[in-house]
């Protein structure tokens, strides 16, 4: 016979009441787990989708000479060939510590060419990554399939009076217009896009890259760290986070988290109130029993131990059950809130968090009833019935 035997037997005796408390705590914990999991999944999903809508890191050569404007951003100029980025730099970006946060790497080589006696900026791109980065592009025609095909902006089409499948001459070589961009309202409207490799050979800049746009999945990713890690890998480059874009994304994502945290806090308070009410009622109906314990030599701390052990057992079970229930519901509910592409794994940290919250709520709410029980005057307690 130990104090824990008394606690276990007492729980079993009051199983209906304790089941009520257990269910209350389990629902509270599972709701928190659901909210955290679903909001995480939603955030990750939103982050993923947002990141598909543009770059949030810009890498340009370190130069203080000429500059030109691209996409509303000022980048280093064309005349700094000795400091230009190259194909190897593209690979290096994929080797940083937070490489799993790197979603898209879109290198570009900017050059100028004469087309029909007009000066036009020609951009060498990797069409796969460029179209992934610029989801808003609407191409009339098709994405170029080989190096002799190009895409032109709507302004180029208009000013040079060009049409689909017509050809243009760049540096004496002929390119077929495979696609025409619908008006984007950006500088892309005045550009000609050709394959990056072809541009490098055409403009005699082998392996050279003018700038690299990077889309980093930034759900909880430390963008400053990614910038720092990239800078470390590319010492000759200037790596800049497009702060406004990131901050907007982060704000959108964290709004969901704040909402979830608020709801979770309210639910935990309700759970704590259920625990407090149940344990207080339990203490009240056990006054005689507590009087007996005290009269036969139990110290105050022994009484508290019995009550706390009961709360500990119930909270532990509620934490585990709440986590499993919450995980199950979250897995099934995530697709309903649009996070269908993400999986919710069994997370040991989340399990520990659920257990911790449950213990904190259940045991915390039992402090007052336990102290009250321990301080009961044994003679008053014995007269209780």
């Amino acid at each position, binding site marked *: 016979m*130990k104090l824990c035997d008394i606690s276990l037997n007492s729980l079993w*005796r009051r199983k209906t009441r304790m089941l009520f408390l257990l269910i209350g705590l389990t629902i509270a914990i599972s709701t928190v787990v659901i909210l955290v999991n679903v909001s995480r999944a939603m955030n990750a999903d939103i982050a993923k989708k947002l990141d598909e809508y543009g770059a949030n890191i810009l890498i340009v050569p370190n130069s203080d000479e000429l500059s030109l404007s691209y996409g509303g951003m000022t980048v280093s100029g064309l005349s700094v060939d000795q400091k230009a980025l190259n194909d190897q730099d593209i690979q290096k970006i994929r080797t940083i510590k937070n490489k799993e946060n790197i979603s898209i790497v879109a290198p570009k080589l900017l050059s100028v060419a004469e087309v029909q006696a007009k000066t036009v900026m020609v951009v060498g791109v990797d069409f796969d990554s460029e179209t992934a980065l610029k989801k808003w592009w609407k191409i009339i025609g098709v994405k170029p399939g080989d190096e002799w095909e190009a895409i032109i902006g709507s302004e180029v089409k208009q000013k040079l009076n060009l049409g689909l499948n017509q050809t243009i001459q760049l540096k004496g070589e002929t390119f077929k217009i495979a696609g025409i961009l619908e008006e984007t309202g950006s500088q892309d409207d005045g550009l000609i896009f050709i394959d990056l490799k072809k541009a490098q050979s055409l403009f005699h800049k082998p392996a050279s890259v003018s700038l690299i746009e990077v889309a980093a999945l930034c759900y909880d990713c430390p963008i400053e760290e990614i910038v720092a890690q990239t800078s470390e890998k590319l010492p000759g480059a200037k790596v800049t986070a497009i702060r406004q874009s990131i901050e907007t994304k982060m704000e959108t994502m964290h709004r969901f988290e704040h909402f979830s945290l608020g709801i979770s806090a309210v639910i935990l308070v309700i759970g704590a109130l259920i625990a407090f009410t149940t344990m207080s009622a339990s203490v009240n109906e056990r006054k005689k029993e507590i009087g*007996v314990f005290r009269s*036969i*030599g139990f110290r105050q701390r*022994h009484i508290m131990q019995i009550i706390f052990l009961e709360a500990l057992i119930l909270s532990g079970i509620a934490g585990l059950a709440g986590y499993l229930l919450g995980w199950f519901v979250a897995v099934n509910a995530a697709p309903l809130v649009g996070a269908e592409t993400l999986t919710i794994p069994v997370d040991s940290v989340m399990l520990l968090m659920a257990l911790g919250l449950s213990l904190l709520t259940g045991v915390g709410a039992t402090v007052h009833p336990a102290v009250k029980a321990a301080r009961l005057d044994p*003679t008053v307690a014995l007269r209780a019935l």
Partner: protein
Amino acid sequence: MNLIYVENLIKEYHSGEESVAAVDNISFSIDLGEFVAVVGPSGSGKSTLLTVLGGLTHPTGGQVVIDEIDVYALTAEQRADFRKEYIGFVFQSFHLIPYLNVLENVMIPLAVVDAPGAEKTEIALGLLEKVSLADKARRLPDELSGGEQERVAIARALVNNPPIILADEPTGNLDSTTSHSIMALFRHLNEEGQSIVMVTHNPENLTYAGRFITLRDGKIAQNSEALKQPLIERIPINN
């Protein structure tokens, strides 16, 4: 040898501005191995005296010394330890824990004693044997008769081997035959050397005691001389 020494004991209860002395300046002593019955009408202060002797109710004045320990000079937690070591309580309404079986009820005082489980079980089973309930060790209290529940309460009071048993109306809820059986058990324990202080309003129970103290309005109306032999030996009891 004095086991219990009570001097100028006062216990007052307050109700508004009025105070009532449940125990009013009494002094007496009880020797080791005595079986003392405390008698008196309802409201005479018997039960209050018992809880004061057991270290449960702080007196308003006076002193209770048990085995040379000034009980109320101890802190509340020290008194809990004192009760564990010195006192075994037997209550009128048994006060068994309903969700623990007979064996577990007897072992409750051992829950705060550092000893191997098997040893605790052996002690409790030995006591159940003594009160003739070993065969009902796994029953719940509500499966037992009143007399059997009282025997369990007595076994529980004895489990820590305390020098004093304090019994509050131990036969108050029992029929006449069962009462005699319980009193015979008390007498037997006393013969084995157990000191017992029993509160009772049943005159028949006096025949089992070696001495009685009569209380009236909180004062000692009569403190009988120690009888050379318990009255029971002179009064035949059919049980």
